[in-house]
């Protein structure tokens, strides 16, 4: 393989900085391990104690990386100068007409209203910059749910009608979802990629402002060696308490962390799969993903494709940069702990799969380290759990196994096994510093910057909110530990997970669901407490923060998923973020479009029907859907007969009697769909007709056009 660019000016600085990071992480870790060994009764001489020290070292090194990243961010912000900042002079570069950019939105069974409202907000913001000529919008649907598929088509038409975006906003649905999201983007690249110099990838829950999109294009134009420019998206639109806590933490600590990441990574940053601009030509040339050898979950299709694409882009010599200083990039969060954990299950599998790529030829060490860090994000949970389990075993064994005061070889003094509680406290304090000092520094950064504390509700509210966040994150950490341990174990055991779409919106978790998910963790917490209390009660107090969190996991999960509680915090000025105190217009447009879409999509006569029913009954939706399909084809008699039977079943029993796969088969076949359309409109039997939504008289079937959204917004 050949690199298109070599010896870039920043590479030497990057190497030097990473060497410093490595020494900052490893030297204190060795010292802490030595302390840890001395804390233990046998000074780490037994196998159990040796393993304890080993796991402690790995965990200490892991949290040290986070700590020094935040410290690097803090000092860079303090200096107010970053010679490698990707911003600055390139932002004002004039963009020529050749810099055509596709804004691609890959979706898969996502909520239709939110997806199209987001695209509307981005489109409108771009239009305001008067550079709409540079951009085309692509909704790349992998949606397999037949009802949602038709809804997306209708929503696309409605969006085009409202914005006048015909010929600029495009929609396509892929029948075979080969390689999921990465395959979806690759399909776009194959079909239309060479029409564009850049593509900006957005998720279904992303929003980006027009000026930010233009600045990204300008930066790419000004720096021809950049292959991917990733923004740091701010989390917005959280409703539930859990999501609001995450949103607050992301907004408060995110800047420090992203600046720190940029400090170590420079041009070897990661790509998070969305809210990033990509140079299309090298992406097509170098970032095609192969199928990994072996069976899933570790082999097969690459699930977390984004890290791999970044590594491949860099392998070809192109830079991958994190534009931490670009505002106007937003995303949304899972509404509850359960939803976050479900997402983590998928991400865990994807990140552990990267271990297969760790020793791939030609990759840069920084990207190998990123693969390792991605896996460590979940493996650290398992290491922590094992560390705690071994500590408990050590504490319990102390009660049952009599110590040997006089070893076999002759010694002058007896050997007293002693727990050095004082040193343990020193270690505990140093660990706490690594975990919480970055948070304190982030609060200081916000407090000293002019007017920034006000964006978080003022200094008192900011401090109170930060305190609440620290307490809740400490409570949820052991729950995450248990689940992440389980995920890593299941992945290594070869259990595959379905890669479904993420839950969005503010749906609170039910008690049944919470108990089903957290039941085993709660039982473990009870049993763990009981064993320690019965055998070594003094150790219980060391373990209490962990086991109490586990016991409380179901109520914590349910209460934190309530949007009413989140709203109460918001009303009292707590957990506020800058996007809430002064909402950008794009977020207001998004909300307005969403409201209007809901009204529009429920208009009679058939608006309130499911997508499949609308495609069969509503002549306009039916014609629209047919226009998306391929031409009618000839099929073998078996297929024709099966489809005829499906049509008969649909007519006799109504659309709800069909399975999703049956609906999809009919939706994919124009001949069947036309025949069904004509047959349904000819139904004279009232019961059958009602099943297809013919309950309304024409006097009430107003199919009126909604008022112009610009005025409503």
């Amino acid at each position: 393989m050949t690199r298109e660019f070599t010896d870039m000016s920043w590479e030497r600085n990057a190497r030097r900085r990473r060497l410093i990071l490595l020494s900052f992480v490893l030297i204190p870790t060795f010292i802490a391990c030595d302390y840890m060994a001395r804390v233990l009764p046998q000074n780490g001489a037994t196998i159990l104690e040796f393993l304890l020290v080993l796991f402690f070292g790995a965990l200490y090194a892991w949290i040290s990386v986070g700590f020094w990243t935040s410290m690097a961010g803090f000092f860079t912000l303090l200096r107010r100068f970053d010679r490698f900042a990707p911003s600055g002079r390139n932002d004002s570069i004039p963009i020529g007409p050749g810099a055509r950019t596709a804004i691609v939105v890959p979706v898969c069974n996502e909520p239709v209203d939110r997806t199209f409202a987001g695209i509307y907000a981005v489109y409108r913001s771009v239009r305001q910059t008067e550079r709409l000529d540079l951009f085309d919008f692509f909704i790349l649907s992998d949606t397999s749910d037949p009802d949602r598929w038709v809804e997306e088509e209708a929503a696309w038409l409605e969006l085009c009608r409202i914005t006048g975006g015909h010929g600029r906003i495009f929609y396509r649905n892929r029948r075979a979802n080969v390689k999921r999201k990465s395959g979806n983007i690759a399909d776009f690249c194959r079909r239309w990629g060479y029409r564009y110099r850049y593509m900006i990838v957005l998720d279904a829950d992303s929003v980006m402002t027009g000026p930010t999109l233009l600045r990204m294009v300008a930066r790419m134009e000004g720096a021809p060696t950049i292959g991917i420019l990733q923004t740091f998206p701010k989390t917005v639109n959280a409703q539930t308490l859990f999501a609001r806590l995450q949103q607050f933490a992301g907004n408060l600590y995110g800047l420090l962390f992203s600046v720190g990441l940029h400090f170590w990574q420079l041009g070897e940053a990661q790509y998070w799969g969305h809210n990033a601009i990509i140079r299309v030509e090298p992406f097509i040339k170098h970032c095609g993903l192969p199928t990994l050898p072996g069976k899933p979950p570790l082999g097969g299709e690459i699930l977390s494709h984004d890290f791999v694409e970044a590594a491949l882009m860099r392998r070809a010599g192109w830079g991958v940069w994190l534009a931490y200083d670009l505002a106007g990039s937003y995303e949304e969060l899972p509404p509850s702990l359960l939803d976050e954990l479900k997402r983590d299950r998928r991400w865990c599998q994807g990140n552990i799969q990267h271990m297969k790529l760790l020793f791939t030829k030609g990759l840069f060490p920084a990207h190998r380290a990123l693969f390792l860090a991605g896996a460590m994000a979940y493996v650290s949970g398992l290491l922590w759990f094992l560390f705690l389990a071994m500590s408990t075993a050590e504490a319990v064994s102390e009660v049952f196994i009599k110590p040997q005061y006089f070893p076999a070889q002759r010694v002058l003094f007896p050997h007293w096994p002693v727990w050095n509680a004082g040193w343990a406290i020193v270690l505990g304090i140093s660990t706490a510093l690594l975990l919480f000092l970055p948070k304190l520094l982030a609060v200081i950064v916000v407090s000293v910057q002019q007017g920034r504390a006000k964006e978080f509700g003022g200094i008192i509210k900011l401090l109170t909110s930060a305190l609440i966040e620290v307490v809740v994150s400490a409570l949820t950490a052991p729950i995450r530990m248990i689940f992440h341990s389980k995920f890593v174990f299941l992945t290594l055991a070869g259990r595959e997970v379905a890669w479904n779409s993420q839950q969005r919106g503010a749906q609170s978790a039910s008690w049944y669901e919470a108990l089903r998910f957290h039941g085993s963790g709660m039982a473990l917490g009870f049993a763990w407490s009981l064993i320690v209390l019965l055998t070594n009660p003094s150790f219980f107090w060391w373990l209490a923060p962990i086991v109490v969190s586990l016991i409380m996991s179901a109520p914590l999960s349910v209460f934190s998923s309530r949007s009413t509680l989140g709203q109460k915090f918001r009303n009292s000025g707590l957990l506020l973020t800058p996007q809430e105190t002064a909402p950008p217009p794009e977020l207001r447009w998004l909300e307005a479009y969403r409201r209007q879409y809901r009204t529009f999509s429920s208009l009679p006569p058939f608006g309130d029907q499911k997508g499949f029913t609308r495609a069969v009954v509503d002549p306009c939706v039916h014609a629209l859907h047919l226009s998306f399909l391929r031409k009618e084809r000839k099929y073998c008699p078996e297929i024709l007969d099966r489809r005829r039977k499906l049509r008969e079943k649909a007519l006799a029993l109504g659309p709800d009697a069909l399975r999703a796969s049956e609906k999809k088969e009919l939706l994919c076949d124009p001949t069947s769909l036309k025949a069904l359309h004509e047959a349904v409109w000819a139904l004279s039997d009232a019961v059958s007709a009602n099943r297809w939504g013919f309950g309304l008289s024409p006097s009430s079937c107003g199919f009126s056009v909604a008022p112009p959204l610009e005025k409503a917004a």
Partner: protein
Amino acid sequence: MPMKPVESIAPLTDGCNGNERELRLTRCGQIALDRVLLYLRCLDFPAPQALELARRVFGEVEGNSAPGADPVARAMQALRRLLREQRPGVGEHPGQARPERSVPASPPVYRSRMVPEPLAPLRLRSQLAGLLNIWRRAPNRGRGKALG
């Protein structure tokens, strides 16, 4: 809008007595009329045009009444035929009558290839040997540089 029963589209009334026949006539005609008007409303037809078209539909159905045929089906068939006559060139389906249907959902395809990148594993032995060679050669290189 006024709706009056269409009398001649009621072959279903054979064998009924006076009142019952009247009732069934009204019901069938009403359903057919409702269906036709609903279809036209879905296509965004203005009310006067829709009524005019419905009148023509029922005129046709009256003229060609066949015993045993379903009135709703016949009315819908007649409507589709009339729509095709009224709006020629909009394709074979009346739903394509709206102007935006003619705008493509995606630009012309500019097909190219995106070949998967080979992800060959590192040969650790050769890497190690390479590293050792670098170390072995390093003093010579350094001396050469200093002399040069």
